[in-house]
């Protein structure tokens, strides 16, 4: 392609993309169109809420495709919601406090507790089409993905430097330009990392979201999650391994095709004044950047489109913006809406209270016992995670050589969902004679220890060499070294990792403590098991009670334990230059 005349003073490397590359891109586009067709035909077909799940490996490609689409759609919804919610929370001063508090509570509610409401509503909305059930499952995955993304975008918006904001204001940026050139780029890195965590969470809960019993109704959607669960229920080991292999493959593929390029691309949004030493890179991204076809598409379609939007939304100087006093009717409307909402909340609280009144004493006792048991498990899993990840993470972080070897492996292990491994784990445990009580701790651990490990590695890397040299020069003993240099140095990172892991562990309890295996239901005492079995048997008041208990516990622990530690990490243990 020719150089733009304007840029003739700078040298642009001639595009070197081969026709082969363009062919690949072209094929990918065609495949996408075909996939869309398959999906629409299935979605708008007649409703089969309890599909027969085949255990043949041949069914796997289609199942994997269905599951991937579900997760992708749920992710896109999450992204849109996160952008909207974060934006409103950051700019509407009156709603801000409320919206952040709502976010805090919602993220502590486990996926399954949303299930009955979401599912029944969706089926009622599309009574005859598969779309209803399908959309219910997607919304479930959505509820597991969206909160941390919304919070990340909100926090980014709030931390945009003042002078950048002022520059945007004084140069008259309209809302659209401010969004594309300031707010979205500033939030991009946080959004990308949180997206990865969210999507991993989506895979984690896939089994729970694709196949479940709701009272007397049986819901089964064709997909990888239901395949794995069916295989586990039947005790079909070879099918389990086939399903597992497929899932790992899909996850690795997505990691390479989506997340690596996204991370490498988002590096340009890093808010830094000086270029940093190492930058993430992605071969796929480089290829995409070099594709002639995509470049043509960008120049011919995207660029003019962006131009048109920006011209359309530009503020014209002659229409000067004057701050308008809030209109009277708007105030009234807001008050009426607030009153209606408040009334609705009060009414449903009252109804919930009435529901809870029918609880029997044993149900109450078992919920409290379950809460205690799950709490103990969460603590145990956190302790085990800390016990091995701190030494391992510090060793990796201190040794560049070790880091180069270990990091890809750790990332690989982290991206494999623990639920997929669970059937295998369970088989081994049963063979060794352990029960689900211990097994569930292991499952929580599998899902959450990576957050701690990665944070500890990052923390160890961030300890300045000077401090480590001080320890060398004065011949610190191992103990003194850990006490004065290493532990304080990684503390902020450790707290961040533990907070994430603890939230994840609570949420994981619903799949870890209750499991269909070889035609029977394995369960142990726990809040998660309580929620799962209540969903299965349609026992709404127990479901409601255990959800409230879990949300209260998570929010309570966040407020009373993690928040003070967080503050300590940000004041006393902050490494400043």
């Amino acid at each position, binding site marked *: 392609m020719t150089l733009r005349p304007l840029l003739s003073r700078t040298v642009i490397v001639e595009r070197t993309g081969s026709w082969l590359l363009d062919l690949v891109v072209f094929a990918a586009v065609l495949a996408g169109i075909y996939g869309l067709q398959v999906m629409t035909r299935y979605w708008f077909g007649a409703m089969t809420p309890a599909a027969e799940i085949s255990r043949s490996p041949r069914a796997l490609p289609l199942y994997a495709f269905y599951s991937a689409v579900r997760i992708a759609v749920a992710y896109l919804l999450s992204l849109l919601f996160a952008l909207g919610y974060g934006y409103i929370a950051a700019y509407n001063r009156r709603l801000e406090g409320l919206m952040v508090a709502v976010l805090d509570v919602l993220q502590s509610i486990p996926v399954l507790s949303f299930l009955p409401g979401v599912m029944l509503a969706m089926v009622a909305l599309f009574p005859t089409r598969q779309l209803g059930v399908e959309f219910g499952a997607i919304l479930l995955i959505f509820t597991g993905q969206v909160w941390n993304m919304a919070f990340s975008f909100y926090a980014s918006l709030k931390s945009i430097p003042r002078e950048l904001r*002022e520059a945007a204001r004084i140069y008259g940026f309209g809302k659209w330009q401010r969004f594309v050139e300031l707010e979205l780029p500033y939030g991009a890195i946080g959004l990308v990392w949180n997206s990865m965590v969210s999507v991993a969470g989506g895979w984690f809960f896939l089994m729970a979201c694709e196949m479940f019993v709701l009272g007397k109704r049986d819901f089964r959607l064709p997909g990888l999650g239901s395949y794995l669960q069916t295989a586990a229920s039947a005790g079909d080991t070879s099918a389990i391994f086939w399903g597992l292999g497929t899932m790992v493959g899909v996850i690795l593929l997505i990691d390479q095709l989506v997340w690596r390029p996204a991370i490498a691309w988002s590096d340009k949004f890093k808010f830094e004044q000086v270029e940093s030493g190492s930058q993430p890179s992605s071969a796929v991204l480089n290829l995409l950047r070099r594709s002639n076809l995509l470049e043509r598409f960008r120049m011919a379609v995207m660029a003019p489109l962006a131009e048109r939007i920006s011209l359309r939304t530009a503020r014209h100087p002659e229409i000067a913006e004057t701050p308008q006093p809030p209109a009277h009717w708007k105030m009234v409307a807001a008050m009426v809406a607030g009153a209606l909402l408040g009334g609705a909340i009060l009414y449903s609280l009252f109804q919930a209270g009435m529901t809870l009144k029918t609880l029997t004493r044993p149900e109450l006792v078992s919920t409290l016992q379950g809460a205690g048991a799950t709490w103990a498990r969460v603590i145990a899993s956190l302790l085990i995670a800390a016990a091995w990840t701190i030494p391992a993470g510090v060793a990796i972080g201190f040794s560049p050589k070790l880091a180069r070897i270990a990091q890809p492996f750790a990332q690989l292990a982290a991206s494999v969902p623990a639920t997929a491994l669970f059937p295998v784990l369970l088989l081994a445990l049963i063979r060794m004679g352990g029960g689900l009580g211990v097994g569930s701790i292991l499952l929580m651990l599998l899902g959450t220890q990576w957050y701690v490990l990665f944070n500890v590695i990052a923390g160890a890397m961030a300890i300045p060499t000077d401090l480590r040299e001080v320890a060398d020069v004065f011949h610190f003993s191992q103990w003194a070294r850990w006490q004065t240099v290493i532990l304080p140095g990684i503390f902020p990172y450790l707290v961040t990792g533990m907070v994430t892991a603890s939230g994840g562990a609570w949420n994981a309890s619903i799949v870890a403590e209750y499991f269909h295996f070889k035609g029977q239901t394995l369960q142990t005492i726990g809040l998660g098991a309580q929620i799962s079995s209540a969903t299965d048997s349609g026992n709404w008041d127990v479901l409601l009670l255990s959800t409230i208990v879990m949300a209260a516990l998570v929010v309570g622990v966040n407020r009373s334990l993690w928040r003070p530690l967080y503050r300590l990490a940000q004041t006393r243990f902050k490494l400043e230059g």
Partner: protein
Amino acid sequence: MQAIIEARKVEKSYGAEGEGQIQVIAPMDLAIYPGEILAVLGPSGSGKSTLLRMLTGLARPSGGEVIHHGHEVGGPCENVSIVFQSFALFPWLTVLENVAAPLKARGVPAAERNTRSVKILDTVGLDGFENAYPKELSGGMKQRVGFARALVVEPEVLFMDEPFSALDVLTAENLRGELLELWQSHKMPTRAVFVVTHNIEEAVLLADRIIVLGRNPATIRTDFQVALARPRDRKDARFTNLVDYIYRVLTRPDLAPSMEPEPAAAPRAKPKYQMLPHAQRGAVAGLLEMLADHNGRDDMYRLAAALSFEIDDLLPVVDAAVVLGFARLEEGDVEITATGRAFAEADILRRKELFRTAALENIALIREITRSLEARADHTLPDGVFEDLLDEHFSEEEAKAQLETAINWGRYAELFDHDSDTRRFFLPEEAPAAPESEAVSH
């Protein structure tokens, strides 16, 4: 002459109306006229930047009004630009995209945007860097991009908020010179420049008119024309006289600014707590030693030059020496006192003693903390008590800073200590660990 932007009785205060309200800027009148470079000088915390933001419409005044061509300003002004101290470039946009962004906001089509941006980049000497990202540029080049972005919209007034203070001395000098050249050769279509700075020489080099602000709250101390011909020579006697005069105005906040000897100021009620200057006592000691070497008296301007300090760095140190009674100010000169000389010549331990006496005698806050601690049976008090007291006299932020300085000085004087975990003051011999170790020894 018709002013372009005019502030009438604008003021700014924070906090709720009533007793807790803190006034940052007292009602002031100010106008920007076509054809002039107007510099506003003031010590840090004097509200210079707030003033700039009110004039551009970025911030709303708490009282009074800002008039732009006869209309009251309600939001960000049309047709003005700001060059920011931190450059405020968008790191994810290339140099060209950064410069074109304001044009995009005005709906200028792509082709015209590019020609105009490239042209202005040529003017500021950045041709060839169109596709670079800001992080690849040095500080001086980043600020050139800042200038290009400000000038590309052909602003009527160019506002600059400490535009050179994030740059090293040589780069700043170079950029200042080029700015003046653009201005004098009318290569920039701007009708007036408003620059906020704390660098006195910079103001005298650039400005046609200088306004000096006082602080707590900000008031206009003096407003005068600079009649020196350009290019201005730093060594010129008239130049140094002007710099000296501004130093005098800045260092004597209690006196009316005038070139004439001032009439005696009316005695004012002494406030309960004086404002503690936030200076490290090591710097105070250094200043006193230097004064002792210079026959006990020196000119502020020369001192600053010898230390290569800016006024913002030197003033708090001098203020600290003055409130402690180690030095006094006279006609822009600093003179060491007898105790100050004794301090400069003493050894480490003797210095501590002298400092303790001086602090107890002169600093109300330190005296009060010490007395209160001594009066308590357990010799300890939460620091919130004093913060609340200070809150009545200072803004919340300043109250914290005051307390921090008091802690710093009190520790050095060994008058009291402070535990930042429990946020309590205690007398040094009452350190929490002490009783325990005594118990063990029994």
